[in-house]
């Protein structure tokens, strides 16, 4: 784990879970897998607190445990999972676009609580939805359950691994930590529950205030004391499926930018058809015949079969090479070349970064070296049609930032510089890794700045909170208009403006974090896909 990643993980853990969890989590990330006592000893926290912190981390799938030899249980932190926490807003937003508010709230609850049973989710979501509706209306549990079932069918939520039911009568003592197994077939099987009920409205409103970070409640209290029928069947969000969805979105928008809307719709259809059938890390989707695609096109698009065939041919011939033709049966079999698509997207990201940082001429040189693989200094100047001095300057600048590297080819065994060829080349994988590292550090910077801005204006924020609380309580007890006015004026106009600026800045920094996370997603997917192929 690089320094930048550890810093980012520590910031995220602190923001979402607090100091103690952060200390334990960072310690585990730094030192790898360790048993319980060693953690307590090294971090200097009491055993009790360490246990609680580990509970929190395990609940959120950030730490896994394993039984090693001699019965020692070791805990290991998963840094990549911690970094996923940056992406939670994007997951929630995607579900909102696909399954509207109900789905959004389901996923939000699951992300907030790590793992939940279905009945608990349904109850909570129904309660929340009812709050936002007008008086007198409530949400039926059945509606929420339906959305939940749909989410499970499309694999967006999945069952957590369970303790296996050991039928044997094992005389020995139970193992110190259970080994969880997950049954592949049952992963998306929704238990048959008959959840009857309606959402309840809470009496006293007890909302979180705007500036406070979300604090995790270690236990969630259940109102019902009777055992629920699906006890023990916990659900979690399937992050891989969301990643697949994001990847598909990126590919479709790339096709739309390069070609036209109809082609992108065709590609979207093809991707949708291979959602369930193709594993997310495969380099190619399953071959789809043109007839199948024609039948699965969305209903609004009535293009004739001939036109569809033409579009498919055009897609297959395009220099982008996102779509390939793999055979002729069934009117032509087409695959989507996922690895190539990710590579093109990662390359486009690199090019865009170079263009914004160094200028479009530098971008021209970069693309030139990328296409021609290895070039000498003189050839670079000739092909790019840039004067020699400027070309040299740009090449050296990019070289110092490690976007371009040099390959030496000596003419003589003594490697004398005057008798060696120096060729410029681009290695996309290493450049992508370098850029990824930079992204992590950037996000850490943005988070730090956000916290700094909030801390600066802490006094003001506290004051505004107090005023709001006073107003709310006075409203509840029925105060007059004049008194309310008086209280509101406790916050002066410049202070109000300061608050406005603060809110705007914090929003901007937040939005920027999410944007940088998009870059991280593309680069990570590309690196993962390349590593799998090797």
């Amino acid at each position: 784990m690089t320094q930048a990643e550890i810093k980012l993980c520590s910031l995220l853990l602190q923001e979402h879970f607090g100091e103690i969890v952060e200390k334990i989590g960072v310690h585990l990330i730094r030192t790898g897998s360790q048993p319980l006592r060693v953690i307590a000893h090294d971090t200097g926290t009491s055993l009790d607190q360490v246990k609680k912190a580990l509970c929190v981390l395990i609940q959120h799938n950030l730490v896994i445990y394993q039984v090693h030899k001699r019965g020692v249980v070791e805990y290991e932190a998963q840094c990549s999972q911690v970094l996923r926490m940056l992406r939670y807003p994007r997951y929630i937003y995607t579900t909102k676009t696909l399954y509207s508010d109900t789905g959004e709230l389901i996923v939000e609850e699951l992300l907030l609580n790590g793992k939940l049973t279905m009945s608990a989710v349904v109850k909570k979501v129904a309660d929340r939805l009812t709050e936002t509706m007008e008086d007198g209306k409530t949400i039926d549990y059945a509606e929420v359950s339906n959305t939940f079932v749909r989410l499970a069918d499309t694999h967006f939520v999945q069952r957590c691994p369970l303790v296996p039911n050991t039928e044997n009568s094992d005389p020995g003592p139970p193992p110190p930590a259970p080994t969880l197994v997950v049954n592949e077939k049952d992963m998306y099987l929704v238990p048959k529950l008959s959840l009857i009920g309606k959402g309840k409205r809470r009496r006293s409103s007890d909302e979180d205030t705007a500036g406070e970070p979300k604090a995790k409640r270690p236990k969630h209290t259940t109102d019902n004391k009777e055992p629920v029928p699906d006890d023990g069947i916990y659900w979690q969000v399937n992050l891989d499926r969301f990643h697949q969805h994001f990847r598909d979105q990126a590919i479709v928008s790339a096709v739309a930018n390069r070609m036209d809307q109809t082609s992108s719709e065709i590609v979207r259809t093809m991707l949708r058809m291979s959602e369930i059938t193709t594993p997310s890390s495969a380099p190619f989707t399953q071959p789809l015949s043109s007839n199948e695609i024609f039948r699965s096109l969305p209903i609004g698009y009535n293009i004739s079969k001939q036109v569809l065939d033409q579009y498919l041919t055009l897609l297959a011939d395009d220099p982008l090479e996102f779509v390939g033709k793999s055979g002729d049966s069934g009117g032509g079999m087409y695959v989507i070349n996922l690895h190539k698509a990710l590579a093109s997207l990662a390359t486009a990201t690199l090019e865009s970064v170079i263009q914004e940082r160094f200028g479009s001429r530098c971008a021209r040189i970069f693309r030139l070296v990328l296409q021609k693989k290895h070039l000498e200094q003189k050839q670079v100047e000739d092909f790019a049609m840039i004067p020699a001095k400027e070309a040299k300057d740009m090449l050296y600048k990019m070289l110092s930032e490690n976007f371009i590297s040099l390959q030496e080819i000596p003419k003589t065994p003594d490697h004398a510089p005057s008798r060696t060829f120096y060729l410029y080349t681009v290695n996309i994988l290493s450049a992508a890794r370098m850029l990824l590292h930079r992204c992590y550090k950037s996000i850490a910077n943005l988070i730090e700045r956000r916290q700094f801005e909030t801390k600066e204006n802490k006094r003001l924020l506290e004051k505004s909170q107090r005023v709001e609380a006073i107003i709310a309580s006075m409203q509840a007890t029925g105060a007059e208009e004049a008194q309310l006015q008086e209280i509101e004026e406790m916050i002066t106009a410049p202070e109000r403006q300061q608050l406005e600026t603060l809110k705007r800045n914090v929003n901007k920094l937040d939005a920027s974090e999410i944007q940088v996370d998009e870059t991280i997603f593309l680069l990570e997917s590309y690196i993962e896909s390349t590593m799998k192929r090797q």
Partner: protein
Amino acid sequence: MAEVKVKVQLPDADPVEIENRIIELCHQFPHGITDQVIQNEMPHIEAQQRAVAINRLLSMGQLDLLRSNTGLLYRIKDSQNAGKMKGSDNQEKLVYQIIEDAGNKGIWSRDIRYKSNLPLTEINKILKNLESKKLIKAVKSVAASKKKVYMLYNLQPDRSVTGGAWYSDQDFESEFVEVLNQQCFKFLQTKAETARESKQNPMIQRNSSFASSHEVWKYICELGISKVELSMEDIETILNTLIYDGKVEMTIIAAKEGTVGSVDGHMKLYRAVSPIIPPTGLVRAPCGLCPVFDDCHEGGEISPSNCIYMTEWLEF
């Protein structure tokens, strides 16, 4: 009384006669004659006399001495050139010949030295002499600006030395290249747009958005923005820079020989395209473009809390 031996001299043995015969032979065989040929013609002349005659002709500048793989060749020299070199000595003639052989591309002074085995000072003197006589000229090479190549006065320097259409007086014409770049791109862009508006079936739409390099060349010639005549290869290099800019893509199709613009049975087609992703998320944050990124850490001189770039960015 001593006997006087009278050597009978045949009329052909007169040195001047020998020279004239040799010159006639040379005229007969303009490509050059070997020693063997002369010997065959005049078998009664001794080798020594032949050598004397040939040497005289060479020093008078009427014969050229060439080496071929069969031996030495003698060739009649152009009478015009013969007049020029009067008054120059052998070394100068040698240097001149070397420069003449270099033809269009010219030759560097160090290469002249290697070929003639003359010392540097001599070479410099001779070159200055020849230049003042307006027989040779020095042309600055565009590749290495310190190097001067010498060639005959009346020759046009080759493209590789002057750099062709993109260089005027050894200077790379960046604005000219930029203007051409933009014009070509605009042409391709409008073509793609008209194709998109036409809303016919996608195949036709796609094919009509392509333009061959020949079409672009014709368009640029008609625009008349270039004072220098541009060839199709020049336009292709400009279009290649557009490809490296990511604005244009190229395909090669097979074309019949004889269709306009086809080279060796294939044609290059170009099409304007738009980038596949919008500017990426990292560059929208100030950290993505920060020049002091590596020095920035919490608690240091440059840190996220007091970053001036962030402050400016937040004020937008």
